[in-house]
């Protein structure tokens, strides 16, 4: 029982990342009709916002310490972050330690800017082009973005730890009446789940309860009519694109402490998030979120050794197997609408 609860938690956690990426992807599909293969790269850029902020905060001046030697036997060059010089080690230490949460503030303007530039500079010319052209251009963009990151940060993962206040684990077991220590879960992963829930709720509320959101939803349903009503739908779609980029970026920022970011993490998530979107159903925000969590939980269950002993290798294929079954039984995914991306 406790094992199952733990795997559900794992699945929800993994599902949070899938859902956040898929949400942005399906928003772009739904509103702009664009297949965005660069969406994984936006997630990766978000994670590297966290890395970059950390680097900026630890920008250092160099003092030479004659008493210590470096690996070549020369006097050791000691690096001290500038902010340590300005504010003293304690404040600086705390600020650097909190660099990941701080990176949220840093990432929001950057990701919005990236989204705006991408949409105005490139994507808008591809609204009327076939999906194949959209795939080619966004795939090219994704390669360019990740190569730029590789050029500056190398190919190895870069450790980006969470603040030490979140480093421990929360004892769920005690809360639910199990023995203490049997069901523990890392604080940061719980934070990630909570964060994802807040962002998803925020996006839904924004679309449901604001006039802006209403127009966008109307535009998703019938773009031409809304345009004929004299509403500037294009401008709103630009903003939606920036919003989707921002959601992917934030998902990346918060993911950095869970797994050290590297330049190709976007591609790792890209295919999975497409599967999630399609299983959820094209054009359905709720479907994308539900499918994200569903696939996350199923993947976690399939990874249990009890399952693997019966069905070896099932952990590698479960997501695709479920995708096939869902698509064969429900032609438009879990909650897809008719006629979206079916031709």
């Amino acid at each position: 029982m406790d094992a199952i609860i733990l795997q559900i938690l794992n699945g929800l956690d993994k599902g949070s990342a899938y859902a956040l990426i898929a949400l942005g992807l399906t928003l772009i599909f739904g509103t702009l009709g664009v297949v965005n293969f660069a969406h994984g790269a936006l997630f990766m850029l978000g994670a590297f916002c966290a890395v970059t902020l950390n680097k900026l905060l630890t920008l250092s001046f160099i003092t030479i310490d004659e008493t210590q030697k470096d690996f070549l036997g020369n006097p050791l060059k000691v690096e001290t972050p500038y902010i340590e010089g300005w504010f003293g080690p304690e404040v600086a230490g705390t600020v650097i330690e909190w660099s990941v949460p701080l990176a949220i503030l840093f990432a929001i303007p950057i990701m919005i800017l990236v989204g705006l530039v991408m949409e105005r500079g490139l994507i808008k010319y591809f609204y009327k082009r076939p999906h194949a052209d959209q795939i080619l251009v966004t795939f090219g963009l994704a390669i360019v973005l990740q190569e730029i990151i590789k050029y500056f940060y190398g190919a190895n993962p870069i450790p980006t730890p969470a603040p030490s206040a979140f480093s421990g684990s929360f004892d769920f077991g005690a809360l639910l009446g199990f023995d203490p220590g049997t069901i523990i879960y890392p604080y940061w992963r719980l934070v990630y789940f909570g964060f994802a829930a807040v962002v998803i709720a925020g996006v839904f509320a924004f679309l449901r309860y604001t006039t802006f959101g209403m127009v966008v939803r109307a535009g998703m349903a019938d773009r031409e009519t809304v345009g004929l009503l004299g509403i500037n739908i294009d401008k709103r779609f630009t903003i939606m694109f920036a919003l989707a980029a921002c959601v992917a970026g934030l998902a990346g920022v918060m993911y950095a402490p869970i797994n050290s970011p590297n330049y190709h993490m976007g591609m790792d998530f890209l295919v999975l998030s497409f599967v999630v979107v399609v299983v959820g159903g094209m054009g359905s925000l709720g479907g994308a979120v539900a499918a994200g969590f569903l696939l996350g939980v199923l993947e976690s269950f399939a990874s249990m050794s009890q399952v693997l002993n019966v069905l070896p290798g099932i952990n590698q294929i479960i997501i695709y197997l479920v995708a096939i079954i869902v698509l064969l039984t429900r032609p438009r995914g879990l909650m897809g609408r008719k006629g979206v991306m079916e031709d």
Partner: protein
Amino acid sequence: MLKLDKKDMRLFIIVALMTILAPFILNPFPEGSGLAQFNAGYPDLMQRFVIFGIFAIGFNILFGLTGYLSFGHAAFLGVGSYAAIWMMKLLTMNVIPAIIASVAIAGVFALVVGFISLRRSGIYFSILTLAFAQMSFAMAYSVLTPITGGETGLQPKVNDPRILDAALAPGATPSAGLFGLEMRDSYELALGNWLFTFNFGYYFAAALMLVAFYTSMRIFRSPFGMMLRGVKSNQQRLNYTGLNSKPYTLAAFVISGMYAGLAGGLLVAMDTQVGPERMFWTASGEVVLMTILGGAGTLIGPVLGAGFIKYMENIISKINESILHQWFYWLPDGLEDLVVGMIYPFIGKGWHLTLGIMFMLVVIFLPGGLVEGGQRIGRWVRGKGRKADATGDKKSTASTPAE
């Protein structure tokens, strides 16, 4: 002749000449010169050009004609490769059974995958094919290791049964051949500073590519091809006329799967090993990119796209910093470093960056892919020839893209 109309016949002859003369065309720079780096006329790369050309031609029969975007075609290539290597291990190193098996098994596999996946259309179809391919990859990598050799893949071993072959000479390694001629046999021709290599394996693969290309031309021009185009432009209307389009689409899917299997079998025939990563989704994505880059729905486009990507992968990635310094040694020192520093991010390990930029440039400026680029150049040249007749030229710009 060959039941092709004049325009197609001309295209076919051009393609045939290009493939036959490829060792010359691809080696324009003399050995030892600074530009020899850009020569592509060595057997392995020429083989890859034609093999991936076949793969892309086959993919185009499905995607270019019906509009169904398969994101799992690498699975058929991989299955074809595994079938071929097993024929070599069990029967003979002669490539004929290997290639027949690769086409047949890939065809059967495509029939199964196609039958299921074609129940959906649009992106749902794409994801179904992707799912099948990713499952094949994951299983080949892990659970199916006894059949696929896992990550290490399969290679012919000295102690394989090979029941049709005579015992190997002591010390010899098994190598793929065709009735006594080996795929790696080459004849080298030195003309002055130029060195041209004529490789038997290449011409074998090239001959099959010409057959594949010819077949695809015939399909494009046949009533069957017209039907497939109908599926692309409006499947519903086609269905309303009382026609069931599914058998046609399925046939196209199986044919293109067999093309992929042929490419997979040829890969093994040229280089006797197979690993699961050739079924990974990036490999499926690559053939999609080749086709779109070259010009989807055109006859020659996919071959151009395949050549382009393979050229980048094999040539640009091999240019390193010291080669750049050799090229620009004549510049003053500071300037030399500056120029090298500016080019360096785009070559060698940065070749992906160049590839990404090229994708974007082509799709932004040449919506019809490389084929459109060729047409524009052709029109520009012709336009120059008869500048006087400017009005007549206007009409031709509005003509349909050549196929």
